[in-house]
């Protein structure tokens, strides 16, 4: 035995403190580990997905067609041309209010509100130019260019309208849509569109807070009130 054997009251100090700590921390670690492995929520991030919308909204629409010259109305196996009727029934007046045929035509073309501004009064198989000459139904841009000069100029260069097929100017697939393929000649303004769903950026689904509403800028979240209606500026003038 050594001479410096500690007295009994000093004995507890000899047990290293780390052991004491380990006795408590060890099981604590084990419990935490078990909690992580078994019970902790998986780190899945709440995500929002795009609301459903009709796939037809994503079909490319060409609104009109390039007409044959003269235009042909096909009913069953019969084919009618404009003059088949109009040679018999002469149009007396050119006021649209007095139409009793072609009632499906909704006429909304600004100050151009007379049929015979564009259609020839005598020969209905042809369109009429400002100089009185005929314009074929296959030359619609020529007809429109008489009033819409700058737009026609832009269309010729590809700055107005839509070009499909290819961006290569020498590619035979390249095709520029003509006026009547996008615009209804009788009502050329586009109708208003229902917009497709807006963005639901990741982790930005339904987490609206007053705080976000305070934030200005395009990355700010939309604010939905309790009843779910939008109160952001975008819908203010609905």
């Amino acid at each position, binding site marked *: 035995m050594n001479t410096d054997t500690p007295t009994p009251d000093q004995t507890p100090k000899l047990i290293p403190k780390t052991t004491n700590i380990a006795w408590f921390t060890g099981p604590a670690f084990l419990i*935490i580990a078990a909690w992580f492995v078994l019970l902790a929520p998986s780190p899945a991030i709440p995500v929002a997905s795009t609301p459903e919308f009709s796939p037809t909204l994503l079909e490319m629409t060409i609104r009109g067609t390039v007409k044959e010259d003269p235009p042909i109305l096909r009913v069953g196996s019969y084919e009618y041309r404009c003059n088949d009727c109009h040679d018999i029934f002469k149009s007396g007046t050119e006021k649209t209010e007095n139409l009793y045929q072609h009632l499906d035509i909704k006429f909304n073309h600004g100050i151009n509100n007379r049929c015979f501004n564009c259609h020839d009064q005598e020969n209905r198989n042809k369109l009429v130019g400002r100089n009185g000459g005929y314009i074929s139904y296959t030359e619609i841009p020529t007809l429109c260019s008489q009033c819409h000069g700058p*737009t026609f100029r832009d269309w010729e260069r590809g700055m107005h309208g839509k070009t499909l097929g290819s961006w290569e100017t020498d590619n035979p697939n390249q095709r520029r849509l003509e006026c009547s393929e996008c615009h209804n000649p009788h009502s050329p303004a586009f109708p208003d569109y229902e917009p497709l769903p807006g963005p639901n950026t990741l982790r930005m689904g339904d987490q609206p807070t007053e705080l976000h509403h305070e934030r200005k800028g*395009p990355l700010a979240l939309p604010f939905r009130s309790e009843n779910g209606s*939008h109160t952001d500026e975008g819908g203010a003038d609905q």
Partner: protein
Amino acid sequence: MTLRIWESQAGEAVSNSSSRSCNCQSRPGFTRRSFLRTAPGAVGGMAAMVAALSPLKDLPEGSLPSVEEFMQKHYKEMSPEEMDAALARMSREVEDRYGVVPSIKDYKPLEGVQFVYALNLSRCIGCRKCVHACVEENNQSRSPEIQYIRVLEMPRGTTDIEEGNHHYDRPTVPGDTHYYLPIQCHQCANPPCTKVCPVEATWKDDDGIVVIDYDWCIGCRYCEAACPYWARRFNFGEPSLPKDKINPDMGYLSNRPRPRGVVEKCHFCLHRTRQGKMPACLEICPVGARKFGNALDPESEVSQILKTKRIFVLKEEVGTLPRFFYYFDERYPRDDGNSPESHAEPVEASE
């Protein structure tokens, strides 16, 4: 027997520890005391490690790269044979996962082509068709939602995009008091995003398109932070893509399915445009506001626009030299104010 040995060793340890000045000549054995002293710490440490690794149990199957993918070289360093092997691997993975046999190709930039995009702000009505056509074309994740194009609804009279709003929710567009500003990757001639990439996973190709090698991206998101146009998107979650919505025409650098943890963005539909086709967002546009072409071809639509229209780029002052231009039509006010011309145009930008 064993117990007795342990006990004797433990007793020895006690005597050792109780005599601090002793130069313990016995070997530091595996005593009960030393065991009790170290075991909780060791177990606790292991438990902590298990806890730290526990998120791995939620790792979806197949989200770790295969050996082949792991050993794949950088896009620019691959030989043609290695590229073929890589494309075959990707094709196999898409087939395994989505049940569709894709055609994945490596589309190279065309000679003598500088792609340019132009967008007519006088025409855009904010219908968001381009956004969703892009999602369909480019196999973007539907949930979590990833979209390359953002459409801002802007009050008339300003081009300050801080005034814009993504979340406009009208029954019909366009709104009478706003115009619409779609933003996507501007494919800058001086791109800040490629400069910050620490691994050269993104670079500017010869035709001007800024591309990303999704297999090389480490997901640090520096590029996302560097982009002044908010053009880049990060796959925080595992991309989910309905099997029936897969677009099988894929390009290595464009619309092949991306893994979780990489950055992606608009690439001017390079798998289409490098074959001469138009981008998907342009084809769907119902008002013909989008124009695309080769700026080196003087006859192309974009050349004509750059020559004759009033154009501007977003955040010109940051010096990124975007190849995405916005332009206006001239205004021809009419007396009645109802004509489509006077209706659809924003107030001229006062800059």
